[in-house]
């Protein structure tokens, strides 16, 4: 026989008093987030971010210049880290939980398709973050969107780079 309770289970379970009993133990393991600057301006942003205390983030850059999707090219040594070491793209993203592409509106973003294809192959979540300097024109932003939309499952257009650090903290990078 059930005992009569003046307050139901939801009422008790969701109280401030009961909230104190939430298990105080880690509920996730560290994740691996790769942050890639797609253009020269974003490289400066990524270099500054790399100075922060992000234990689970790797900060990367791509080579300047266009990438022809019609010609096979080696992904070995294609990426670079902020210390100037070269990295292999597929190896670098293997096991990543997420790849964040940082772009500046209006800048050439050819590398987005290469990284996007590699992430698609490896089934890795991609986020693109476009920084829009005050002088950004609609045309410049359109060009950037056209290059990034096919390859990003989440896209953020932000006015200041401070947001990126907040986003990385929020995602436990």
């Amino acid at each position, binding site marked *: 026989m059930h005992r009569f309770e003046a307050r139901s289970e939801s009422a008790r379970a969701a109280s*401030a008093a009961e909230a104190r009993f939430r298990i105080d133990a880690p*509920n996730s393991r560290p994740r691996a987030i790769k942050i890639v600057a797609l253009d020269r301006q974003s490289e400066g942003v990524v270099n500054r971010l790399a100075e922060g205390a992000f234990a689970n983030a790797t900060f990367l850059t791509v080579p300047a210049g266009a990438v022809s999707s019609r010609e096979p090219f080696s992904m070995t040594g294609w990426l670079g880290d902020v210390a100037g070491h070269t990295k292999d793209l597929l190896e670098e993203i293997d096991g990543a939980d997420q790849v964040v592409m940082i772009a500046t509106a209006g800048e050439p973003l050819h590398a987005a398709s290469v990284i996007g294809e590699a992430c698609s192959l490896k089934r890795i979540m991609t986020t693109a973050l476009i920084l829009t300097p005050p002088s950004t024109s609609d045309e410049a932003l359109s060009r950037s*969107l056209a290059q990034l939309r096919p390859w990003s499952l989440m896209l953020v257009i*932000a006015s200041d780079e401070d947001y990126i650090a907040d986003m990385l903290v929020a995602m436990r990078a």
Partner: protein
Amino acid sequence: MLKKEQNDLLTQTGPGTPGGRLFRSYWLPALLANELPENDCPPVRVKLLSERLIAFRDSKGRYGLMDEYCAHRGVSLWFGRNEEDGLRCPYHGWKYDYTGQCIEVPSEPEESGFCKKIKLNSYPLVERGGVLWTYMGPPEKRPPLPEWEFATVPPEHSFTSKRIQESNWLQAMEGGIDSSHVSFLHRGDLNSDPLFKGAKANQYNLRDSRPVFEVVESAGGLFIGARRNADNGNYYWRITQWVMPSFTMIAPRGNHPVHGHFWIPIDDENCWTWSFDYHPMRALTAEERRAMEEGKGIHVKYVPGTFRPLANKDNDYLIDRAAQKAGKTYSGVEGIAMQDASLQESMGPIVDRTKENLVSTDNGIIMARHRLLRATKALMDKEVAPPGVEPVHQQVRSAAVVLPPDKPFVEAAKDALMVRAGVAHASV
């Protein structure tokens, strides 16, 4: 994840707190106008931003909102007599006008002028669009009156309700900008709720259940766009507006009224969820109004005589496990509003954000917190008025539109995202 000090800063809104100062920069919905239906009607207790207040309407129709407790011995003025241009404490007859000024202390000689030395803290209370709005900040920084479209259309075009939510305002508001939950939690309601069903857009929703999200800063807050594939290579966009600190407006469907919310702190563990529906171009039909009154769409049924939802934490939200199993509802809770509220309340009064694990689709939430923190800091450090205060930030609309694939939705749907007199909202 948020650090504890950031979580405290955003969730605490009592007097003297940074978050409290932020909320005290805005006109806030305080009561429905029909809670004070006539001159000299009974006063109403109101708690906002952790301050206990009493609202009344005097003999001349002037609205007052002031400290709930008599300055004499601390009696609640809810027991007061609302008579002859003032609210009189029934204990010893002290009487206050609509500004909180004491105008009679019967025990003291009138000539002494003692009553002029007594004044309860009070706030302006102004009717607009069937809502009584208050501003609880410094008088010298009082902004222009609110210009939200739902409050400026003819009364027959709109319907507003409010309900108590037993959680902090932030976790409730974050639900309003968390577009990715709709495909799960509310999936049973798009084709059955009378205020949602029948729109062509619902087909896009069902055909493409994995939307891609874009978050863009706006002058007053954020645009949150959910993109799905439409016909001929175009994208179908649902664009939600968030205006600081806690206004959200959800993209419309078909010719249904458009709707949205405010989440206003009662204290740090409870908030008012305000829900509005309106149509810019036409009066609501009798069927639409009846559906809203009966708790359909984003509204709720109430415990009679209260603003507490009928389905609430004391009755386990009337959860129906058979309906859940049969797929009629995804969570077993009936109605869009209580589907959201039940889960948000289950987090506890103030969710511990140090334990959360946000993912990429949570960028709308992350950006909203970022902007709230940034605005609070600018207000505290440099007295900068936060976004959302200016009427131009309030004259916004959500939109549902089909656009070419390479266009920034903010630019391509620029007109649709602003209030335009005499023009219908953009909907599919």
